[in-house]
């Protein structure tokens, strides 16, 4: 028995595979002790016998929440003397260009816990000044008095030569300042890349969340049977064994959206669709990503204004969700989000005191939410309150209530459209060649309208759009990544010399995959090079081969419209990415019997049109119907506009197509 468990703000979702059969479960989350809801759910699913669980794949927001709520470890930072304020100066810019009273996101480590140590390397990693042990001991004394539980170390050029950082770790352990070596976070280990601020920020984030994640994982491991293997989702869409969280806790920070993306990509692939754009829309935000064969990685992101670099998936997040507030601004334009009504008071229709119109209220006024069926009837909706909120908004907009509601929905579609553009057109992909995979509570409600804006011809809504992230956890492969700084001019002979390095990294990756319990036959390793023209700062990732230089010129031409064949090409990093293919649940496929689906009812839309109503559970493979229609299910509602047709495929996906 294997389980995927995704802990969200409101619900903890479970997908269980038992002898090839999939089961789905949902329990309310327990934010104070996230593992409580998880264990309760697992216990219920396994009939009280957790020993039947061979494996649990887990995604949580523990790391993210620790940062957002500033409830992480009591951490300190050690820097090269003269650079104590790395985190406080940042890159010298202010986040908002036109703020009369500018503010910056406060760093996670207070300035009084930033310490300097005399040492200095040059750009080639040669020591200009040795590590000053007396200086270090003084800092250790001060930290001792301060009662800290994690230390980030970021010295200049440690990505070229980590010796000084390692000496610091050794000394800290000798002095008994911390109990475990993993409590010392070396920037050279977490992010061996140039740019000291981004590296210091990433190391500080790691130090801030590592003790929290470590404690959390320990509690989970104690509660689960010893034989159950626990894997944790990472931001790059792969899973790792739980123990590795003590080296890479911050790698879980953006794992939630990544799990959804993996789930969507694999479901779509099973349906024969390999070019997809995912649309995961929840209460406060929407995550959008593009998959053309494989998900696209990206090197950097920001969490609460703090930069994080590492391997993660290229996911665009926009502040538009069901709870996004709508308003008319002083210039007379209708705006939606990024401010959100949150869980409390929430949208007006929740009846919890919210008065300002939200996207969910607009959907309710347009008749697209069923008052009785919302969350399977667990939360009856106050439609009159939604109507009042939209009425209030319609006056300054000078529009009717229905027009205003449609406008709010349209603007949400525009936000989605802009995010889709950024992941598609801006990267040279034509969205018209893609299928939009919609999930999350609100994704299927807005997918068709957003798709129409970019002439995306098809939308896929998975059978259980609300638990797709939990399914993604089960579908994710084990991912390991090793890299080495190369930093030299590219030439045929240099490439030939790298073959030996590549073999060494490959052996390390294979050993790591073996530790994850992956058989050699299920391991796939791919080497690549980060390359650029000498003098550029941003690299393109090119598959490792003897032809890599020519491939780089072509990739530059594709990305930027020009190549510079006379320029010297540089190899910055050699990377080795290893995947351990995990056992996948077989997705049941039934014969499609084409037939017209019969709606269980009909209701009048806002402009007098007739909306056909369907129950998702009642739709069999091969069922067909056309818009305007609504499809209700426990965790989501799908809206099919006029001019669209729907078909249920053999895997019970809803395929929506424009006629």
């Amino acid at each position, binding site marked *: 028995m294997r389980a995927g468990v995704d802990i969200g703000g409101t619900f903890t979702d479970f997908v269980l595979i038992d002898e090839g059969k999939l089961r789905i479960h949902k329990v309310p989350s327990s934010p104070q002790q996230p593992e409580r809801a998880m264990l309760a759910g697992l216990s219920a699913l396994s009939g009280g016998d957790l020993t039947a669980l061979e494996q649990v794949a887990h995604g949580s927001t523990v790391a993210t929440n620790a940062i957002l709520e500033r409830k992480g470890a009591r951490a300190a930072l050690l820097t090269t003397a*003269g650079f104590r304020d790395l985190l406080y*100066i940042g890159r010298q810019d202010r986040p908002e260009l*036109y703020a009369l*009273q500018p503010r910056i996101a406060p760093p996670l480590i207070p300035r009084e816990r930033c310490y300097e140590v005399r040492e200095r390397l040059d*750009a080639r990693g040669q020591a200009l000044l040795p590590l000053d042990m007396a200086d270090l001991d003084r800092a250790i004394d001060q930290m001792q008095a301060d009662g800290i539980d994690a230390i980030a170390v970021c010295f200049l*050029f440690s990505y070229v030569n980590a010796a000084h950082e390692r000496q610091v770790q050794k000394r800290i352990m000798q002095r008994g300042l911390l109990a475990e070596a993993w409590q010392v976070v070396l920037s050279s280990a977490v992010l061996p890349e140039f740019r000291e601020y981004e590296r210091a920020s990433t190391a500080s984030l790691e130090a801030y969340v590592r003790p929290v994640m470590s404690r959390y994982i320990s509690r989970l491991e104690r509660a689960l049977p010893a034989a159950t293997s626990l894997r944790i989702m990472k931001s790059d869409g792969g899973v790792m064994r739980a123990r590795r969280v003590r080296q890479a806790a911050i790698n879980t920070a953006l794992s939630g959206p990544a799990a959804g993306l993996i789930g969507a990509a694999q479901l779509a692939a099973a349906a024969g669709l390999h070019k997809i754009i995912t649309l995961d829309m929840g209460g406060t935000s929407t995550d959008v990503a593009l998959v053309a064969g494989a998900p696209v990685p990206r090197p950097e992101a920001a969490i609460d204004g703090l930069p994080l670099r590492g391997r993660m998936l290229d996911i665009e997040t926009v502040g538009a969700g069901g709870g996004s507030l709508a308003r008319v601004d002083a210039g007379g334009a209708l705006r939606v989000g990024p401010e959100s009504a949150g869980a409390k008071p929430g949208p007006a229709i929740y009846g919890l005191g919210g008065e300002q119109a939200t996207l969910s209220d607009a959907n309710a006024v347009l008749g697209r939410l069923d008052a009785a069926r919302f969350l399977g009837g667990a939360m009856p909706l106050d439609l009159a309150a939604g109507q009042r909120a939209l009425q209030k908004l319609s006056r300054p907009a000078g529009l009717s209530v229905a027009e205003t509601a449609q406008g709010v929905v349209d603007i949400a579609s*525009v936000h989605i459209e802009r995010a889709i553009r950024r992941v598609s057109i801006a990267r040279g992909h034509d969205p018209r060649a893609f299928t939009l995979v919609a999930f999350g509570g609100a994704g299927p409600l807005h997918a068709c309208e957003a798709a129409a804006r970019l002439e995306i011809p098809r939308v896929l809504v998975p059978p259980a759009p609300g638990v797709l992230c939990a399914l993604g956890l089960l579908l994710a492969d084990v991912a390991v990544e090793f890299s080495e700084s190369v930093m030299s001019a590219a030439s045929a002979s240099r490439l030939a010399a790298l073959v030996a390095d590549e073999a060494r990294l490959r052996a390390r990756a294979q050993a790591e995959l073996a530790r994850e319990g992956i058989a050699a036959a299920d391991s796939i390793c791919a080497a690549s090079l980060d390359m650029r023209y000498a003098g550029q700062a*941003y690299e393109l990732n090119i598959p490792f081969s003897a032809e890599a230089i020519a491939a780089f010129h072509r990739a530059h031409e594709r990305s*930027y419209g020009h190549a510079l064949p006379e320029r010297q090409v540089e190899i910055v990093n050699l990377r080795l990415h290893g995947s351990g293919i995990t056992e996948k649940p077989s997705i049941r496929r039934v014969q499609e019997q084409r037939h017209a689906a019969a709606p269980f009812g009909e209701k009048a839309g806002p402009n007098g049109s007739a909306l056909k109503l369907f129950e998702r559970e009642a739709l069999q493979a091969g069922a067909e119907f056309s818009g305007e229609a609504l499809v209700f299910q426990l965790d989501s509602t799908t809206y099919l506009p006029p001019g669209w047709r729907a078909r249920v495929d053999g895997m019970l996906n809803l395929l929506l197509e424009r006629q």
Partner: protein
Amino acid sequence: MAVDAISLEVFKNLFAAVAEEMGLTLRRSSFSPNIRERLDFSCAVFDAEARMVAQAAHIPVHLGSMPASVAAAVSHFDSFAAGDVVVLNDPYHGGTHLPDITMISPVFADGALRYFVASRAHHADVGGMTPGSSPLSTELYQEGLIIPPVKLRAGGALNDGVLALMVGNSRNPGERLGDLQAQLAAQRIGESRMQALMREHGVTASAEHAAALLDYSRRLTEAVIAALPDGSYRFSDAMEGDGQTEFEIPIKVRVDVKGKTMRADFTGSAPQVLGNVNAVPAIVRSATWYCVRLLAAEDIPVNHGCFAPVAVVAPAGSILNPRFPAAVVLGNTETSQRIVDAVLGALAQALPGSVPAASQGTMNNFTIGGFDGGAPFVYYETLGGGHGGYRGGDGISGRHCHMSNTLNTPVEALEYSLPLRVWRYHLREGSGGAGRYRGGDGILRELETLVPATVTINSERRLRPPYGLQGGGAGALGRNRIVRAAGEITVGGKAVAQLKAGERVIIETPGGGGWGASAGATAREG
């Protein structure tokens, strides 16, 4: 397609996305640390009448001055063809200072000119007296290569000769060529994205919405001005010298607020000066519009409409409207900051509760250049400093203020490619002005050159500190020092020095002014 509250928001995002994508292309494919690391560039979309429709928010000083570039291109050429790219940097013909090179491309649809897309990037060296092209000059000719509006590409054909001429006048030609090619790539992206936008949404609908967006921003800006009490507000601040002599150079403004319109009259400011701090009118407009934009709580899309309700007057022959060929290289970076301090000082009388005390008021420009084993190198950097305190909060520390928002060059990027070493880079504790709400702290940066080099420093607020408000204290003065084998000397705010290998320069940037009296605060109002 009729314009309504909804479609307006749609097109606002569409136009902005074009400018954003141009910027992304430029950043990722450029070569100089100044563009790829410090992001010293801006991109924008203009309508056929050279009115700015959308700008990717990067550098405020570019915002009001790019329209002058497009206007200059339009008035200079009788006609455009698809595939043209006009390039210019002449401050007296659409530019601001010579390192800022602007490219402008017409965008056609159905055979007619519909839009322009433009990019402006600060190129680290365009020739002139000292490496980095920010010399202590006395006429424009000393500041580098002057490029009047010329077609770098005509109908899609690159003019290799013009490109070679531009590259050949720079101390680092290889880097210049790469950056200019990256800028051309950004222009190509902008042009094709605008064409796609018109194809998808229609030429007419696009034009109607572009016009409606200008109107929208105008209404929002008018609402901001209308909220100010009518009246005349005066303020006077001063520059500390022109690089030739240290003397007070007054920057005076009278801001008249009447209903929905505002007029900023700089009459009474100093006559034009011999040195490099003269500012062309495009900069004066930029700085004034920036101040108005700051007052708006709404996220106003920055376009031509923001400028319409604000009139700016600067008498010809003054430091804020100099006659050719007055030296102007610091007008863009330093005088622009003082204009902001003056206008905000005046507006503080209209809005005493919300305008913050003065921020550092300088960009602390410094350039270092020379030869590294026979190869020329140029390094250009600016430094953040303290921001002014405001009612309800201390000023932020170590960040760029007002007309600049460039990033720093990471030490690890700098030392990898240049013969320089950074020994200290930290906040100047206690440099923020005292007050109920303290000013932010400045920065100290200490650099060593490993080869003989020329350093040029162009900074302000070394003699007259950033002012406090409502009884708050002034921020600490900045200070520039040179450490030679024989000892340390303090140099002026604007200085050139020849350094030997192993010598160092230490720059300390000003603190921000404090807001509101507190025990022990020395009140100093500008």
